């Protein structure tokens, strides 16, 4: 089938299968379909759209057909994306399974593990969370202490994770555990999968300064995990973790193209002779938007270079660093644009303080997924090749 034929086919399929209400923009990721055992669909259309896309493998277009993926080539996947964008189709499914575990399993998992888990990710049956960070570990991720003891026919997991995104809403966890307590810290780590309904697993949401609670503390108390649920080699989990961190970094750094500040400022503050009246704010916004536009082109350049076969490598750290710092700066400017209204915390008029809360939420951007300081360390070491202490 030629690419043109494929495009025609996709267009027809979308026309028939994507419900009209799924062709409208989402206000935030909260409106997205996250799937999983306990997911409450916002509408029948949302459920239908997931089922139909999941069946075609269009939730994960480039993953192999044999594991429930779409089996599309890069070019075909690009066409699918273009056609979905053309009709403003929402993604049928978003999840850490798609972004993180899937790619890791495809690269490091056994055939059996792929068969077991990937189709359920593709169909949105199982919602995954990521168990990396631990209390006190912070940027020094590899100092984790959650241990999995080898009990012959199973692992016995004890310990605690923190900053587990949506742990309270997830079905399974992919988790870094220490299997060789005596090995050097990077070498005793394994990558383990288990069901959050296992006996001994409990979660507790963390309230943030923004008032939101997207993260949990997660506790493991004598959790029994079957031997076969360790991914890759025992003691080599750090390799998988690093692979996924690079993935995550790229995702977090890629903030997309939000509504330009200048547009909001024009709406909110008005113009005189075509220019924002507040000359100082205009100057600040211009400085921000010049950098934001250059960042957008940099994401595009990195994407284009990756398509042309270049490896992104440590450049993902640069994208993560710049993208998150810019996003923080953007929200500081948004406060200035909204004036005192920005500081409302309750009340319908301010959507329960969305401006203030979103602003505070951005402060975590440069902490989660590797702090800005860690990214600068990585650039220094891996790109500039400056010497270690």
């Amino acid at each position, binding site marked *: 089938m030629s690419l043109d034929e494929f495009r025609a086919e996709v267009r027809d399929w979308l026309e028939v299968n994507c419900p009209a209400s799924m062709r409208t923009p989402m206000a935030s990721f909260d409106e997205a379909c996250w799937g999983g055992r306990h997911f409450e669909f916002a509408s029948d259309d949302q459920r239908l759209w997931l089922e139909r896309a999941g069946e075609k493998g269009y939730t994960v277009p480039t993953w192999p057909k044999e594991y429930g993926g779409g089996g599309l080539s890069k070019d075909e996947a690009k066409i699918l994306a273009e056609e979905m964008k053309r009709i403003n189709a929402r993604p049928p499914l978003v999840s850490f399974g798609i972004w993180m575990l899937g790619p890791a399993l495809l690269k490091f998992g056994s055939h059996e593990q792929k068969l077991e888990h990937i189709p359920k990710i593709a169909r949105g049956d199982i919602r995954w969370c990521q168990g990396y960070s631990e209390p006190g570990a912070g*940027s020094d991720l590899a100092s984790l202490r959650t241990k999995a003891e080898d009990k012959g026919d199973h692992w016995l997991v004890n310990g605690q994770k923190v900053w587990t995104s949506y742990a309270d809403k997830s079905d399974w966890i992919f988790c870094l555990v220490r299997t060789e307590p005596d090995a050097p810290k990077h070498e005793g780590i394994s990558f383990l999968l288990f069901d959050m309904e296992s006996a001994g697993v409990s979660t507790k949401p963390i309230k943030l300064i923004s008032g939101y609670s997207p993260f949990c503390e997660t506790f493991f108390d004598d959790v029994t995990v079957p031997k076969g649920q360790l991914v890759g080699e025992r003691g080599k989990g750090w390799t998988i973790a690093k692979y996924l961190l690079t993935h995550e970094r790229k995702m977090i750094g890629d903030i997309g193209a939000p509504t330009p500040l200048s547009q909001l400022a024009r709406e909110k503050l008005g113009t005189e002779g075509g220019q924002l009246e507040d000359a100082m704010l205009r100057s600040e916004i211009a400085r921000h938007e010049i950098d934001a536009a250059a960042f957008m082109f940099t994401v595009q350049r990195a994407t284009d270079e990756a398509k042309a076969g270049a490896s992104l490598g440590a450049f993902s750290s640069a994208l993560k660093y710049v993208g998150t710092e810019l996003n923080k700066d953007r929200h500081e400017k948004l406060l200035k644009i909204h004036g005192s209204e920005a500081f409302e915390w309750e009340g319908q008029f301010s959507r329960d303080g969305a401006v203030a809360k979103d602003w505070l939420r951005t402060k975590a951007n440069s902490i989660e997924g590797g702090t800005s300081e860690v990214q600068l360390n990585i650039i220094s070491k891996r790109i500039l090749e400056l010497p270690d202490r």
Partner: protein
Amino acid sequence: MSLTLNEELQLLKESADGFFAEKSPVSDLRDLRDREDEVGYRADLWQDMAEMGFVGILLPEEAGGADFGYVGAGLVAEAMGRQLTASPFLAHSVVAASLLKALGDEDRLGALAAGDELYTVAIDEGPRFDLAGTKMTATQAGGGYTLSGLKTFVPDGHVADHILVVARTSGTAGETDGLSVFQVDKGAKGLIADRTIMADSRNWAKLSFNATPATLVGTLDGAYSAVERATDLANTVIAAELLGIAEECLTRTTDYLKERQQFGVTIGTFQALQHRASHLFCEIALTRSAVLKALQTADEGGPVGWFAALAKARAIKSAELATNEAIQMHGGIGMTDEYDIGFYIKRARPLAHLYGDYNVQADRFAALSGY
């Protein structure tokens, strides 16, 4: 004049620092927030503050005040900034007191010094400070006036017994001429006070007036310069509170850097963090000088706009840097509601915005410098 504190002020500073550290640590604000306290401040603390002389700190001794001047008020505000003390101090003891003094109104000063009846001032009508842009019009009715319209971002607006409202008695929005100040009392006909819960968990209100009876305070039409002077003076004290916030963030952050371990070492040994903390220290040191200079100038009684704009601009810049650096250097724990550091950033921004943000101050600084 020497840019230092004399012995008397040094004693005041120590007593204010000690008082607020003991009587109203940050946990108090958390408690008020979590209880959804309707009054929004602790009445017993306010009573204690009155006994300490803080409530009437700007007022002359004849009026029952402590007469410590703006340098004194700044020291109290700085101590409150360090502890994030919730209190009507700013609205009542600073803004209302400065406005009544600038209007030459002696009668109300006694009540002000006692603090039993709370005063506040209502200026803003939209999301930004714009005194000359005041639109609310006072209508002559019988022997007095009535007010109709909306005032926003009024500190302690829902608990105040008396609200000093800026309204137009002639001219149109954009003109400095034609403004007057009126007093409206709590419970007055047509007055609706709508408390607005804001990021800083402090008292703010929207006040809606509907043919509400109001009494003229001071002279008709010429209040612009008095209100401008009052907000300038308020800004010097706000700058001191922001300075307290910035300093406390630096202290808490360096303490954390000395204690927190990562990669097997104390993170305070990382040179990149050391340099950022040291830079922040210098930033705050500059602000401290600008704030003290502005407070001293306020006490000298002459023009204070240039100094107030300078101090407030510096304080906003320092507090923004300090709160952002504090959260970043605390890492994940700084993002949790359980930890106190987040309360500081939530207070710093609305406080900075009151009576004009950085750009407003910089613009004024430039204009008063002649460019």
